[in-house]
């Protein structure tokens, strides 16, 4: 039994070490890697503590999704933030000294929160307690009620379907929120009062771009959208000696072939999670794995190859259809079984493809929504344009870009 505690403590140290690194590291990209380290530590911890479904989701989130989001955001900020002094080119905020606010007050408050939490946790029953009646009911009910051998899926998509219904629209609110925050400037028919208020505020806040960083932002934006014409498709023919970072989008042939080999395995692994009624986790981790596969293809093959698949306009419709399917699956319970999220699909014998009744339908539509939603989120963040802040004097605002990237 002690072997469990050894593994458990090792994983905990790993997570706490990652967290300390995130707080302590000054270099932002380094802190992102530390955050990914914490994510990996948590994945191992979840496997040790007996939560394989959550580990499925956490490995993709910790290793791929979060770091990509942070690195994209840092990249977007770096081209815009005023460089402190042109000579050293040292970004004041991004790598410079970490300006710290009142340190001791914060240490005191954090210690207060820590003692409050520890006081609460010592009062809780420890792991030798019997499972609560609610959990025991979920375990014993999973087979008779849903013919599934996966009680966590039975609870997520069956018993507490209303919770997952709320979580789904939490995700929809986040995705639409990102779409609203990253949208490009759209022509407005008439006079909107706030625009006039905005002009006044922009005078005193958007101080005119002094340093070279603003036209560098313009140049980076142009490079990002209208591909620089002379950029080769793949960097293979480029001489190795050229010191400049690669202008080609795709990666070298080695990386491309490795991704071409691993991609089918990843997709099959992801879809397995949602294929049977009793597969671990269902739509949520499968959507995360799908996002991981799409990001892998994007880094290896570059944006143009991925754009054929990931078209924002199509993806938004797919995501809304996924959400509509979820409302349909749950609302159908009302006329057929008399209550909102009741299980109205007949149960097949356990461990067959259609066992689990409503679980299967709910988790497949969940996969559609989570997969499409997270892809929209990442590609919206990638496609963010610089056209809302005050433009330069020449204001050549190239609206000609290929719509919302």
């Amino acid at each position: 039994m002690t072997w469990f505690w050894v593994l458990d403590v090792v994983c905990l140290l790993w997570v706490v070490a990652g967290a300390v690194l995130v707080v302590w590291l000054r270099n932002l990209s380094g802190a992102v890697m530390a955050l990914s380290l914490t994510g990996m530590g948590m994945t191992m911890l979840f496997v040790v503590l007996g939560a394989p479904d959550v580990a499925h989701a956490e490995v993709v989130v910790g290793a791929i999704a979060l770091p990509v989001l942070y690195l994209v955001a840092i990249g977007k900020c770096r081209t815009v933030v005023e460089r402190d002094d042109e000579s050293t080119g040292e970004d004041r905020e991004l790598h410079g000294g970490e300006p710290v606010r009142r340190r001791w007050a914060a240490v005191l408050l954090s210690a207060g929160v820590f003692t409050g939490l520890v006081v609460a946790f010592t009062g809780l029953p420890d792991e030798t307690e019997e499972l609560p009646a609610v959990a025991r009911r979920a375990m014993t009910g999973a087979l008779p009620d849903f013919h599934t051998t996966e009680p966590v899926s039975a609870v997520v998509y069956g018993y507490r379907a209303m919770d997952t219904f709320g979580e789904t629209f939490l995700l929809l609110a986040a995705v639409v929120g990102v779409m609203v925050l990253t949208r490009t400037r759209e022509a407005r028919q008439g006079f909107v009062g706030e625009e006039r208020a905005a002009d006044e505020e922009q005078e005193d806040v958007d101080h005119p771009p002094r340093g070279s960083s603003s036209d560098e932002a313009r140049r980076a934006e142009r490079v990002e959208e209208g591909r620089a014409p002379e950029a080769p498709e793949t960097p293979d023919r480029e001489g190795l000696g050229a010191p400049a970072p690669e202008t080609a989008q795709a990666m070298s042939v080695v990386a491309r072939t490795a991704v071409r080999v691993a991609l089918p395995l990843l997709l099959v692994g992801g879809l397995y999670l949602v294929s049977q009624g009793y597969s671990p986790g269902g739509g949520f981790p499968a959507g995360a794995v799908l996002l991981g596969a799409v990001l892998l293809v994007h880094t290896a093959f570059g944006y143009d190859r991925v754009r054929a698949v990931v078209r924002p306009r199509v993806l938004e419709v797919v995501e809304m259809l996924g959400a509509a399917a979820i409302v349909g699956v749950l609302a159908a319970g009302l006329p057929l079984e008399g209550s909102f999220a009741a299980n109205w699909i007949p149960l097949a014998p356990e461990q067959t493809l259609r066992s689990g009744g409503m679980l299967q339908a709910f988790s497949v539509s969940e996969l559609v929504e989570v997969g499409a939603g997270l892809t929209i989120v990442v590609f919206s963040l990638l496609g963010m344009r610089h056209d809302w802040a005050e433009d330069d004097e020449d204001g050549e605002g190239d609206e000609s870009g290929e719509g919302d990237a």
Partner: protein
Amino acid sequence: MRTGIAVALCAVGLFFSLSGTVGVWRMPDLYTRVQAATKTITLGALPTLVGVVVASGASPPYLTRAMLVGFLLLTLNPAASHALVRAAYKTGTPQWRHAVSRGPGEVAQRRAES
């Protein structure tokens, strides 16, 4: 007997992982460190994986999953290290001062001079 083989394999894996870690710590610059790190994965993890499969008795579901993990490790790890080092080289990460081969900047300069 089976546990003997398993323990031996795990010991081999452990040794290579340890040596790889020492390599990462001692090596002077990025290029050699990545080389040591890759060795840790390829030679350290695979023997341990085989040892675990031998120890647990090769029941089909367990064996297939272990082979899948092994295959993915063998394909993806070298590609990842390649991408890492190429990016470092192209962005001009400095080499160890006594390095024999040309740094990225010098090739361009020599071509410019000649």
